[in-house]
């Protein structure tokens, strides 16, 4: 099979900080300053963070996609997925490198781009279709199919501003799903609508990919959707490709690759502590034994130093290693005198699922003023007790695994 997308050494560099002063007067003043041989205001500002003022969003990304291949692109937030899609869709251009493609390209970074609230569903189908690159004749020939798929036939001549958000999204996705380019670029758009519609959308995407032989580049955080749709995968991390291959291998690497460096106890000196406005975090500790089992209560303790009197509390955030947000809780809002304190938390046993967890903390003053985000304060692993499983070994599905009361009674 021939190669239809070839990405060669593509990099994208963003300049951070000030890009000009944003007013003509300001830039003119700068220009005059330069003419007079003085350093401009702007330059001075930039010089301070000279090395931090560029951001490399993509670095030497090279890959090929064959005709009919469905390639899944994975990576954490900020890994460069969106930038890659934007460059592939011609929304922005690469800083270096080239991309070559064969055939019509359509990209779907959002559903319902360009929908106009005052226009009817019918008018919006044509408008949105045209924005996505369809000819009027193509939309006409698919019109009935689109309306059918969306399930809003009854309201097709109503302005879309009167639609419920569900109807709106269904109509928008229906138009997009009936695009017929040779190369389709899809961002996380399948996560719209209710469960039923999601199923229908994934089915439609599968059909597009498998039966119509189209080349698809698909970005998602939903491992399940990726595994259902893609043959191959590509994982980005900090703008670089770190893994390519069959989708299963890449998703496994993605999940496993984020293995945590477990740290059950951390101490800091005043010089390197997390601190904000006279409050220092000097130590964080999990008081459990070395191994934490699912049924154990988990006791966490944070040693704080207050330099002055403060009305303060800690906001505690727990994430699992897939970056799912498990919960947020707060310590008691209290008036602390200057001195050292311990702030303790206890997570009940039998709540968390097996797996790795990370703790983030926020410092909050006066009940609502956030003064510091402190990330990755502690990381720990919860293990299932070996004898606990009945016939299922390994991690149970689901984000948490609480003890659910259940009984079976003969009546």
């Amino acid at each position, binding site marked *: 099979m021939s190669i239809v997308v070839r990405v060669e050494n593509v990099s994208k560099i963003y300049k951070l900080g000030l890009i000009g002063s944003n007013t*003509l*007067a300001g830039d003119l003043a700068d220009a005059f300053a330069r003419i007079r041989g003085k350093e401009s205001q702007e330059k001075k500002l930039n010089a301070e963070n000279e090395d931090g003022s560029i951001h490399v969003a993509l670095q030497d990304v090279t890959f090929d996609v064959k005709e009919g291949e469905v390639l899944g692109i994975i990576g954490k937030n900020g890994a460069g997925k969106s930038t890659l899609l934007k460059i592939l869709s011609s*929304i922005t251009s*690469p800083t270096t490198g*080239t991309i070559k*493609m064969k055939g019509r390209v359509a990209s779907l970074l959002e559903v319902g781009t360009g929908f106009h609230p*005052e226009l009817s569903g019918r008018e919006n189908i044509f408008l949105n279709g*045209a924005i996505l690159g369809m000819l009027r004749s193509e939309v006409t020939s698919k019109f009935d199919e689109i309306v059918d798929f969306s399930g809003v036939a009854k309201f097709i001549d109503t302005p879309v501003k009167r639609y419920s958000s569900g109807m709106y999204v269904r109509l928008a996705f229906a138009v997009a799903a009936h695009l017929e380019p040779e190369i389709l670029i899809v961002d996380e758009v399948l996560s719209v609508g209710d469960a039923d519609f999601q199923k229908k959308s994934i089915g439609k995407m599968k059909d597009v990919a498998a039966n119509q032989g189209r080349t698809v580049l698909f970005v998602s955080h939903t491992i399940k959707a990726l595994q259902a749709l893609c043959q191959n995968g590509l994982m980005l991390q900090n703008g670089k490709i770190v893994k390519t291959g069959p989708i299963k291998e890449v998703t496994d690497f993605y999940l496993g690759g984020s293995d945590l460096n477990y740290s059950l106890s951390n101490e800091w000196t005043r010089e390197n502590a997390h601190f904000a406005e006279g409050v220092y975090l000097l130590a964080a500790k999990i008081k459990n034994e070395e191994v934490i089992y699912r049924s154990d209560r988990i006791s966490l303790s944070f040693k704080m130093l207050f330099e002055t009197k403060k009305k303060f509390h800690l906001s505690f955030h727990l994430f699992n290693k897939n970056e799912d947000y498990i919960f947020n809780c707060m310590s008691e809002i209290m008036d602390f005198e200057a001195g050292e304190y311990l702030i303790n938390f206890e997570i009940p046993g039998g709540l968390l699922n097996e797996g790795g967890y990370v703790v983030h903390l926020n410092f909050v003053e006066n009940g609502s003023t956030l003064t510091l985000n402190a990330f990755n304060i502690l990381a720990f692993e919860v293990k299932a007790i070996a004898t606990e499983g009945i016939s299922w070994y390994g991690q149970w599905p689901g984000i948490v695994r609480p003890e659910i009361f259940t009984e079976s009674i003969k009546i």
Partner: protein
Amino acid sequence: MGNLNTEVADNENKWTKVIEPTESLFRFNFRELWHYRDLIVLFVNRDFVAAYKQTILGFLWHFIQPLFTTAVFVLVGYFAKIPTDGLPRTLFYLTGIIIWNYFASCLTKTSNTFVGNAAIFGKVYFPRLAVPISVIISNLMSFIIQFLVLIPFMIWYRTDVHPNIYLLCLPVIILVIAMMGLGFGLIVSSLTIKYRDLVYFVAFGVQLGMYVTPVIYPMSLVPAKFRYIMSFNPISPVMEVFRFSLLGRGTFSEYTLAYSVIFSIVVLLIGILLFNKVERNFMDTV
């Protein structure tokens, strides 16, 4: 996934789309724009239809605005005794206003292209020029409608006005106005990405522009020594030709008209140049 440098080296020249860091500024992909012609039509339709949804007078707004403005100018002109080349005041002002309106709305609405469409432009690619072109066309439609308003007045004042062979210039006049409106609009929209204050400048520039263009006074009123300066305004000759062709009075020469035509072409080229330069990366700054 495949290995680079594999079997497909012979396919190298069959790529239909190549994306590179820089492209020629003078590239003008007419074929691509043509592919999106339906989109332009739909944009025109959207602007035209959606503008007057949920309004009481709806479509009538196209007539009301020029008629009321004319009425005000007629009153002011009457009391201030501004001459109108001996033409009926109503017709004199109406012709001036509708042609100025076309220029002003082309300019102000295209000057917002990037900032106003950032949400769409950030999510999907289509030739960005489709947006300003559709603006020019939908404004042309309202120009034509307003032009129709002229006809009953022309009939009413039929003994005072003398339409003539210069009416054949009408398409050129409209084209020149459209090119200037589009050209300036593209320049401004490309610059507003960096300099947001240009938006305010345009709003009041258009207002001031009307007073240095013979919209509410005839060119013949301008003393001969200032007329030279006035003729630097590329819209003045077009305005005068427009009036002359319909009403039979106006002050212009072949040279001033040729100047307007050349000016409009140059402005449009500069506009497209800047637009091309900006369009590829504006999402990074906007």
